[in-house]
């Protein structure tokens, strides 16, 4: 065989790999949109489940996922941004900094179910917070913390050095420089990271399994110490644990589609914020 023919074969196989990756995404979207859109309606989004979840909507799950995701961001965003500011602006290259960085890298690789167990052992048992919105929110906050830190650090790194030096030359202290000059110009980058963390938290199931998610609740959570329903867990129940699995399959498709759309919408928002920011920078 001649070398150019082999090259053509090789390149064709690379194209095939990339095509397969795109095809996987296409297949996921096609299947869920095709099967799920038939049950999608305003009623599906705004009504409570009825008759043992065989009829009605998924409103409490949508509400619960939104709530717990916001609670997790309430903790993860300030903490993650603070960590990132320290690492990027203050930290010297010493043992403490290396330890913090190594911890963040390794936290990012900890399986989500392990976070769930940690939440159970620390917040439910150790601190007595019970299985609740707050406990799940805190657990998800720890899970998303590494990604908030990484993206915020990158946003801070992209602020030009001259901007900082200008402020310092005018007599500002380091903190004043960070607070009045560096942070405002890093906002879009930080926002991108926070939105992506929201999207990650909204789709996770394993960390909330033992920390507050409920199979079914009659009322919406009225306080941070109540249990809640969530979209990912609802989908898990409908597709594996329900007593009439075949009957609720359309509802499962609908739930999967709503969850996917929510997550993709958040990703799209992050993408738009990032694109605008790049253009203006």
């Amino acid at each position: 065989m001649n070398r150019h023919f082999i090259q053509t074969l090789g390149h064709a196989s690379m194209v095939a790999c990339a095509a397969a990756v795109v095809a996987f995404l296409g297949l996921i979207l096609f299947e869920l949109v095709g099967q799920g859109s038939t049950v999608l309606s305003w009623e599906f989004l705004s009504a409570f489940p009825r008759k043992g979840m065989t009829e009605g909507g998924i409103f409490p799950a949508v509400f619960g996922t939104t709530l717990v995701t916001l609670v997790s961001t309430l903790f993860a965003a300030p903490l993650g941004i603070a960590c990132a500011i320290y690492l990027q602006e203050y930290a010297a290259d010493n043992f403490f900094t290396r330890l913090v960085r190594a911890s963040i890298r390794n936290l990012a690789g900890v399986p989500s179910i392990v976070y769930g167990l940690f939440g159970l052992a620390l917040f439910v048992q150790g601190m007595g917070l019970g299985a609740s919105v707050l406990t799940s929110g805190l657990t998800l906050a720890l899970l998303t913390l590494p990604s908030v830190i990484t993206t915020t650090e990158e946003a801070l790194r992209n602020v030009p050095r001259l901007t900082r030096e200008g402020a310092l030359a005018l007599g500002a202290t380091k903190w004043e420089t960070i607070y009045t000059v560096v942070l405002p110009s890093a906002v879009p980058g930080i926002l991108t990271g926070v939105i992506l963390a929201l999207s990650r938290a909204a789709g996770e199931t394993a960390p909330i399994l033992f920390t507050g998610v409920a199979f079914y609740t009659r009322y919406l959570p009225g306080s941070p110490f109540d249990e809640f329903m969530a979209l990912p867990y609802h989908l898990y129940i409908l597709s594996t644990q329900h007593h009439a699995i075949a009957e609720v399959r359309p509802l499962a498709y609908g739930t999967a589609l709503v969850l996917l759309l929510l997550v993709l919408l958040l990703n799209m928002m992050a993408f738009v914020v990032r694109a605008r920011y790049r253009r203006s920078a």
Partner: protein
Amino acid sequence: MLIRHFWDKFWEKTLAALALVAVLTLGGIFLLLLTNSWKAFSHISLSEFFSAAAWNPAAYETPTFGIGAMLWSTLLVTLGAMAIGVPLGLGTAAFMSELAPARLRNLLKPAVEMLAAVPSVVIGFLGIVLVGPFLARVFHLPNGLNALNGAILLAVMSLPTLVSIAEDAIHAVPKAYKEASYALGATRWETLLRVTLPSCRSGLIAAIMLGMGRAIGETMTVLMATGNATAMPNGFFDPVRTLTATVAIEMGETPQGTTHFYALFACALTLFVITLLINVAAERLAASYRKKGQ
């Protein structure tokens, strides 16, 4: 003047204290898993836990706590996922960084990111409704919920990690290496295969290991799509139950304070240690290629 400098110091110290949270969380996870697992090992011997195949914690007479079958299941599903995902992921990464025109690359990147964003429970659902029936039809099985199903799904889930890290690694190869190869008369394909890929080998291995770490730790997908049998599997067509799935299924129904409860913490500790080792090793490899790239 003084008060401004006070605030400057104040924030530096406060932020340092907050950064400590990352260290405390990682340490806290390890310590809580360890202390809870410890209580299990006063009833179960270490050798039984790691080598016995039978996991039968609810047995009335003599409950057994062996994770052998689960370790083997986890290994089977993960290796299967890598066998499918690694060629696809590396091929895509090489395509994106070496062959694709800029415009196509700018479309592929968001597609890979979107794939990464799909929640694992949604992938698991597709394993039940799409991959399962497909496998059952093709291989004439009663149902398609088995190790192969899990491997296919985990391959898809680890693709984004594989592709993005492998692409970074390939991208970091100095241009001079390739140009030298072209100058010697090598084709682009020969250059890719014999020069570019070998010179970023450590980065590619890091990508594979991080993809593997992702696959080992994945819970909902395998829980939903692999059939959940605690028996020792004989191959890819057998239903399996991984370490992650066992913890997810049983923790909710296990009374707190029992040996079973603590044994599940021991499963999670095992999982934590495995993924930690993989991540540390991958990070070392990645650091070595970054140095070379500069």
